[in-house]
């Protein structure tokens, strides 16, 4: 009995084992390829078939590495734990700057988790960005950037269909090498790096171009292999290769290439940007857009609106009139005030008025009657769809700054622009070599060339994507030129020439400055208060205006040297009006006046000051020779010149250094008169200076 039970149990066990084995085989047996003619191979078990279907077979994902496979097997399912522990070790090694062990540990992590993309992405970033900066020598830093790239390359071997890794390759190659503080050195080393590039010719080793190649590899994976993990929005993903081409153009120009090479680079960039404009891009709203199609869509929209207007028989004007009449009184009052004199509340009300009087296409469509109504509704629907599309395109164009780069690529390839950039580059080089004459001549020529560029391509200043405000990149270019030019002028002790060709653009920069509206309001109010005899209130407002001028000058330092005489004169007018309030209030003008340096520079470079100084020097010489009558004549002229300066720049009364010079002239004048036994004239035009400083 007992034996029979044991036998039965064994049979049951065997059956269960067999059943489990069969199930295991059914589920898990591997697929086999075609072995011979007529043999189609086996698709494998359920799991193998699912892996094939979902592209999860190791052979489909990427290279099969025996080391990695052996390690994975040896881990017995504990590779997550092991990878975690190794990750902690890597952090510790990085903290203690143990670089060789850090590299070795990262190598081990990727061996046990070769298809975990985040490891490749994160650690490549860690190597190229975080570890590289720990080194002081830029050669070492470059080597670690390359280590990051090599790491990603290895990751791509294990994961052949992952655009996110190819895109990371593009990013590190282009942005890390091309944008780091050491970009000059990195780019040089990258071109010379035979070990990294292998047989790639040196002319093709620019980091921006190599980066572009990697971005295009990622595109290829998406377009041909249906890979989907791109690690960013499709909009940015497709903008990256042409942007690399643009950056390449910029980089070679920075390095002094302005001939055919630069022209070709920008020409290609322009073509690629146009292609990008034609690329179908999916959006998060489920729309497919083309950035370059906006004008066409706008025209379609305008035509539809015209059609709608026709169908509603001029309802638009009627509605606008009605709405304007119905505006509340306070809104109407606010609209009646000139724009510059509006209070913040009035500005708000004026803005609200615009909104309230806006007539939407739906309102117009509702005005259509009879058989036109249905047609109007149909058009309205089209307009709505079009509006949505245009809005989306506009947003996306803004994100990638599409119009600016479109224009920039076209402008950069023109001879005019290339010349302008070349002149700036050459002048910069001359300045660095302390060749001031060449630098000065270079900047003079460069400003003329830039003025021509801006006159021919005014859109470079403001584009749709910058909200019709000044474009930052263009502003940076102009600012660089003006700063350098100002430095050379300072060395030559000169102001900007009165016919400075870029003066209108400086004026435009000032007029577009965000402080300008507040400055204008402060000035308008100050003027009003002054006219009403409220001098204290006017003085406070002028102080506010001077504060804004100070900020504007800080942002446009060339104004110090009168790069735009119109703006400079406006500043001086403000100062004059400010000084008048002191006069009216009977208070002496303050010594610590915030625009003192600005005024001092203008006075020092004025013809009147030069005349006054020359006259003083001549008078001193003549007095020493006891030619008092001639000396008196010279001093008369000199003092007249100072009088004119005080009239033009009334704030000078607060400037000790200038007033001391005036006092010296007065003292000499008094001595010369005494020598001739003449009395000191009364009233004396420069009496305020004497009153303020002679006792001190």
């Amino acid at each position, binding site marked *: 009995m007992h034996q029979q039970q044991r036998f039965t149990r064994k049979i049951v066990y065997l059956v269960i084992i067999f059943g489990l084995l069969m199930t295991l085989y059914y589920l898990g047996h591997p697929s086999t390829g075609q072995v011979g003619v007529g043999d189609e191979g086996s698709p494998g078990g359920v799991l193998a078939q699912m892996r094939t279907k979902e592209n999860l077979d190791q052979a489909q994902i990427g290279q099969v590495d025996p080391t990695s496979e*052996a390690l994975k097997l040896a881990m017995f399912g504990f590779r997550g734990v092991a990878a975690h522990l190794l990750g902690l070790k890597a952090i510790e090694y990085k903290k203690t700057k143990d670089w060789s062990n850090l*590299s070795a540990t990262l*190598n081990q992590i990727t061996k046990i988790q070769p298809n975990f993309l985040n490891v490749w992405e994160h650690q490549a970033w860690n190597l190229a960005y975080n570890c590289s900066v720990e080194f*002081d020598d830029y050669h070492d830093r470059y080597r670690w950037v390359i280590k990051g790239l090599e790491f990603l390359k290895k990751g791509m071997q294990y994961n052949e269909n992952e655009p996110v890794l190819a895109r990371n390759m593009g990013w590190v190659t282009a942005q890390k090498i091309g944008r780091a503080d050491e970009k000059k050195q990195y780019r040089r080393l990258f071109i010379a790096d035979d070990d990294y590039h292998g047989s790639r010719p040196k002319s093709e080793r620019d980091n921006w171009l190599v980066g572009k190649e990697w971005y295009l590899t990622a595109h290829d994976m998406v377009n041909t292999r249906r890979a989907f993990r791109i690690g960013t929005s499709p909009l940015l993903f497709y903008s990256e290769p042409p942007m690399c081409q643009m950056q390449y153009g910029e980089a070679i120009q920075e390095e002094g290439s302005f001939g055919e090479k630069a022209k070709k680079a920008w020409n290609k960039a322009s073509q690629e940007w146009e292609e990008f404009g034609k690329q179908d891009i999916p959006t998060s709203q489920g729309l497919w857009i083309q950035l370059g199609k906006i004008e066409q869509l706008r025209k379609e929209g305008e035509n539809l609106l015209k059609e709608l207007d026709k169908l509603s028989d001029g309802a638009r004007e009627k509605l606008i009139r009605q709405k304007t009449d119905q505006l509340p009184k306070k809104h109407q009052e606010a609209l009646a005030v000139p724009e510059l004199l509006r209070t913040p509340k009035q500005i708000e009300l004026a803005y609200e008025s615009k909104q309230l009087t806006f007539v939407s296409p739906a309102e117009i469509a509702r005005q259509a009657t009879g058989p036109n109504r249905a047609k109007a509704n149909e058009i309205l629907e089209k307009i709505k769809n079009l509006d949505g599309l245009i809005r989306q395109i506009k947003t996306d164009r803004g994100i990638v700054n599409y119009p600016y780069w479109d224009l920039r690529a076209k402008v950069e390839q023109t001879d005019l622009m290339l010349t302008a950039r070349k002149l700036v580059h050459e002048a910069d080089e001359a300045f660095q070599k302390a060749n001031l004459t060449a630098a000065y001549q270079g900047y003079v020529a460069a400003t003329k060339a830039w003025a021509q560029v801006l006159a021919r391509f005014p859109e470079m200043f403001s584009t749709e994507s910058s909200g019709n405000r000044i474009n930052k990149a263009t502003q940076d270019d102009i600012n660089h030129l003006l700063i350098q030019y100002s430095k050379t002028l300072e060395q030559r002790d000169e102001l900007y020439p009165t016919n400075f060709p870029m003066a209108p653009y400086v004026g435009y920069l000032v007029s577009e400055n965000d402080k300008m509206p507040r400055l204008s309001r402060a000035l308008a109010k100050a003027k009003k208060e002054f006219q009403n005899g409220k001098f204290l209130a006017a003085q406070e407002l002028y102080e506010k205006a001077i504060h804004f001028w100070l900020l504007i000058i800080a942002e446009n330092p060339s104004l110090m040297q009168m790069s735009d005489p119109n703006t400079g004169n406006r500043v001086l007018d403000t100062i004059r009006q400010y000084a008048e309030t002191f006069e009216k209030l009977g208070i002496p003008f303050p010594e610590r006046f915030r625009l003192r340096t600005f005024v001092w520079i203008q006075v020092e470079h004025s013809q009147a000051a030069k005349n006054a100084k020359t006259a003083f020097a001549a008078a001193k010489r003549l007095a020493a020779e006891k030619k008092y009558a001639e000396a008196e004549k010279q001093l008369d002229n000199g003092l007249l010149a100072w009088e004119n300066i005080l009239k033009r720049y009334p704030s000078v009364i607060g400037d000790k250094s200038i007033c001391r010079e005036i006092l010296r002239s007065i003292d000499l004048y008094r001595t010369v008169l005494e020598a001739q036994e003449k009395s000191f004239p009364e009233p004396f035009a420069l009496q305020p200076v004497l009153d303020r400083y002679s006792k001190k």
Partner: protein
Amino acid sequence: MVVETQILSFSEWFWPALAIFGGVLGVLLILVAFTGLVSGIVRLGPARGMRHFFRAIGTGFVDLLLMSPRRIFALTWLSIKDAFRRRIVIVFAVFILMISFAGWFLDPGNDHPLRLYITFVMTATNFLVLLLVLFLSVFSLPTDLKNKTLHTVVTKPVRASEIVLGRILGFSAIGTIFLVAMGLVCYLFVTRGLIHTHEVDVATLEVLADAEPDAAGAAPVKGKSTQNSRHRHDLIVDAAGKGRLEVNKDHWHPLIRVGGDGKKASDYKIGSPEGMLIARVPVYGKLRFYDRERNEKEKGVNVGDEWTYRSYIEGDSLAAAVWTFDGVTPQNFPKQLPVEMTLGIFRTHKGDIETGVAGNLLVRNPKTGLTVERPVFISKEFVTDTQIVPRKITPVNVFYLRNKKTENGESKMVREEAEPQTANRPEFDLFDDLSDNGTVEIWLQCLDTAQFFGVAQADLYLKAKDAPFTPNFIKGYFGLWMQMVLVVGFGVMFSTFLSGPVAGIATLGFLVMGLSRSFVIDLATGQTWGGGPVESFIRILTQQNVVTEMEEGFRTTVAKTADGILMFFLRAMSHVLPDLRQFSASDYVAYGFNISGNWITERGLTTLSFVVVLFVMGYFFLKSREVAK
């Protein structure tokens, strides 16, 4: 190389270490004696209990003092035979398998291949041998007891002490055999694995820009080698045809032109790698700092580095890091003083990207204050840079740095100009002018404004000589051997009163605690985040992060009280257990530093002390068991 624990001279180490050892041993003895006495009194009554206790002590002394070497040897041999019967050779096979495939896992492109290779082979050997002896030592006695094979031994005229010592020696001998065999294989693996050569990449050869050809038209050329073992070298060959491949991956190669016109790779002969398999003999100094006003400080500036190993000195200020060296005598340094340093660099601004941060060294006589300034050098980070201080020093500048006390009682160095006859001397003798009976100060200063040098005590040393690699490799394995002997000691001691698996867990616990002693101390002293074991367990269960305070209440009070008790024991244990990491010298071998005699002696004595205590404990535990009576 990072040296977090300073190696003391034997005289500095011995007496404090002996005092600690005596203290701990005394406390242990009192505890054990008290426990034994109390348990005897409780079990057998006061009179019999005390008699029994003192008899046991007396027998113990006899057993320990009258051991027979012959019987010990016989028992040792028995342990060895027994171990081989357990097919321990398999461990060696596993090791050979690991080494065979090591090349797959080791990156030959690593910047420091020797470090990688040494770290790998020594870690692999260490863990395999430790696990081997752990299992052997903890299961041997309990298995013999279970199988009653021990009865055949105890019935013979052997003492329990001889049984315990025989096991310790036997398993240590097995571990030694394995270590020697593995060490030999590893040595060959490392030395053969790193051998490679290059060829001259003739396409890269070009005459040095500022070189002038000699009468025969030959001029020095520079270029690059071919890429082998995932690296290449810059090379330079002088007009006579002698040259070298410059240092890369911690080594260089000699090069000689053997014929031809130098335009073919075969015209050059390149030798094997040099400078990699070495053991520098460093002389470490004592480090102190001076701040920007030259006030003496214990530490430099903290630049916000998470790792506080290095302390920083500010550039273009009076701040300095000062090392005081002893033994600077003509006998030890007959020709010159080679100062080797590894600096950390911290820039607060980009500065000049193309050039490193500038620094200089001052050599000062600590007695007279006479200081000579050495020429400016450009720092190299994470690289061992050598600055030579010749015996006859031509100074850049000479002055006195004299120690003054400030009003706050702090020490401050004040510069005083040297008198004209000193200032105008063309040269100074290192030993006559700048050494005070062999004591010399080396001052390190950073010269660039707003840039910093970071240093630790071991970052600047005097290189006495280059010792050969092989003895250093053997000394490195001696460190592993000591760890192995300690594991055997603990394993055998635990196995005398615990069952095999429990003894295994206890020894493994010792091993883990010994290898992570600093963490255990941090844990025991409450310096880790997340509290003690009970609090951490609650945090894990409730998914509460480690930095927020636990909510006050009964649960927290209980947890913290339990943790307090556990941490008390943990603290006590951490003081008794050896720090196994201190016995690892793999970093010394890997970074090419000689393992000093002091290191060997101090750790050797520590090992011996532990083993003696463990042996005595093991004996008494075994003696307390029925079988050994």
